[in-house]
């Protein structure tokens, strides 16, 4: 089985190809500004490098958020059109779970993404990628108070945020995702969408005004 994994959820862009439990191609670029100009080209390079064609792909893992709204749109649109057209399995992966594939010491790993204004997207996972605290949009202070005090926790992120002093940089592992999710039932491509974890501000205002 050939797997394609796409991550456009942040300023990192990751394209990876794997065959069963062997990595064929892993491209990671930091500080991407325009995901759209790079993504398809990198997929093409990865495929050609391995003498594969796009129709050889059997399963797509697409990192669908939370994270950069614009980045997510590029990756998710590409993935769902690909899955629909090629009639192949598509499995969305949480960007926080994806970051939690980073190797760490201790009991739990807390991946986080800066959501600005003192907020982060964060969750807590164990070493088997089981979600212990679900992914959420939360203030940094609240997040820190919320975490179990007795456990040894490692933060993993890509940028420093005020309130989280020590963290490790994410080193994502494709094989962990394949192992955990390869038997998952694929989603209907029409229903795969970014998981923004945050409503549009205009929606929030409308919602608030209707509830008062």
């Amino acid at each position, binding site marked *: 089985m050939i797997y394609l994994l796409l991550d456009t959820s942040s300023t990192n862009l990751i394209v990876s190809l794997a065959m069963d439990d062997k990595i064929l191609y892993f491209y990671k670029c930091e500080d991407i500004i*325009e995901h*759209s*100009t*790079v*993504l*398809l*080209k990198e*997929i*093409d390079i990865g495929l050609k490098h391995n003498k594969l064609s*796009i*129709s050889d792909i059997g399963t797509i893992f697409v990192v669908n958020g939370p994270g950069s*709204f*614009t980045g997510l*749109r*590029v990756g*998710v*649109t*590409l993935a*769902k*059109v*690909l899955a*629909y*057209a*090629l009639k192949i399995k598509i499995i969305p992966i949480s960007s926080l779970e994806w970051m939690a594939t980073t190797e760490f010491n201790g009991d739990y790993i807390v991946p986080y993404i800066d959501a600005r204004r003192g907020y982060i997207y964060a969750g807590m996972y164990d070493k088997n990628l089981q979600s212990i605290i679900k992914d959420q949009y939360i203030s940094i202070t609240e997040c820190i108070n919320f975490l179990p005090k007795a456990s040894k926790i490692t933060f993993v992120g890509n940028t420093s945020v005020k309130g989280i002093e020590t963290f490790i940089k994410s080193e994502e592992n494709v094989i962990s995702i394949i192992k955990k999710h390869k038997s998952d039932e694929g989603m209907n*491509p*029409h229903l795969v*969408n*970014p998981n*923004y974890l945050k409503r*549009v*501000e*205009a*929606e929030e205002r*409308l919602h608030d005004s209707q509830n008062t």
Partner: protein
Amino acid sequence: MNTYILGIESSCDETSMSIVKNGREEIATIVLTQMDVHAHYGGVVPEIASRMHIENITLVLESLLQKANMKVEEIDAIAVTYGPGLVGSLLVGVEAAKTLSYIYNKPLVPVHHIAGHIYANALEEEMKFPLIALVVSGGHTELIYMKEDYSFQKIGGTVDDAVGEAYDKVARVLSLSYPGGPKIDALALQGKDSYPLPLPMNDSTYDFSFSGLKSAVININHNEKQRGNSIIKEDLACSFQNRVTKILSKKTKHALESYHVKNLIVAGGVAASRGLRESLSKMTSEIGVSIHFPSMKYCTDNAAMIAAAGYFAYKLGHRADLTLNASANASLNGGK
């Protein structure tokens, strides 16, 4: 040999795909509009628009292929609106187009949104050159000179609000729900031109300005309220629309005469306005110019017009590669 173009349009709040044969014959079109959703907010919310395009993109593709009873394999090229428009919305169409082009190994043709509006006319009759195109919509007000097929020379445009934008803002002043343009047009027909509004940017250029006119409407509304008078909506709508149509007709006439052109094409959502149609038709008949309006369904954003323009661009060899990006402010000049 026939050429089939798959067009994709997502520049604002319509997710649309279409298949057009030889640039002239519409095989099938799907337009999924988000208008009802944005009506809650009194206008298009870009982030919501973009989110909805992603939700709908493959559904629209599936519906199109079913309706056309065709496969992507049978298409000759994929044409997509790359700009101008809302960047988050454009991106979804561009990414989908690139992905399809890559999977099926089909040429990718970038189409400027305004070129699409102009080529909506090709779907109903053969376009005759040279021509002047007046493009009027919620996002655009432009006068374009076309010497021949797919050659665009922008000779004038709005310096502030687009005409459709002014309509929507005035509609809000008159407490009409979004989108207010068609409602103003309807009210204007019942009213009389009794309010003293300025004729905006009444000069010898081909440019337009609608923000001052809009402010004048807001001021009249405000002042009358202060005095305890109520506004006669029909009359204010009529006065506003008369200024808009007068200046559009005047500058279009100026362009037709200066460029010695005998064909006028009107395109874009505001081309649906009866007031504007009347005013322009009267002007063109006076100077012996033939005028062409696309049908209503081709005035608003749709992918058939993108596929039609895409056909002519394809024939001229216009191509984009996998690095094509959305461009919010793409300019229409020369051949692209």
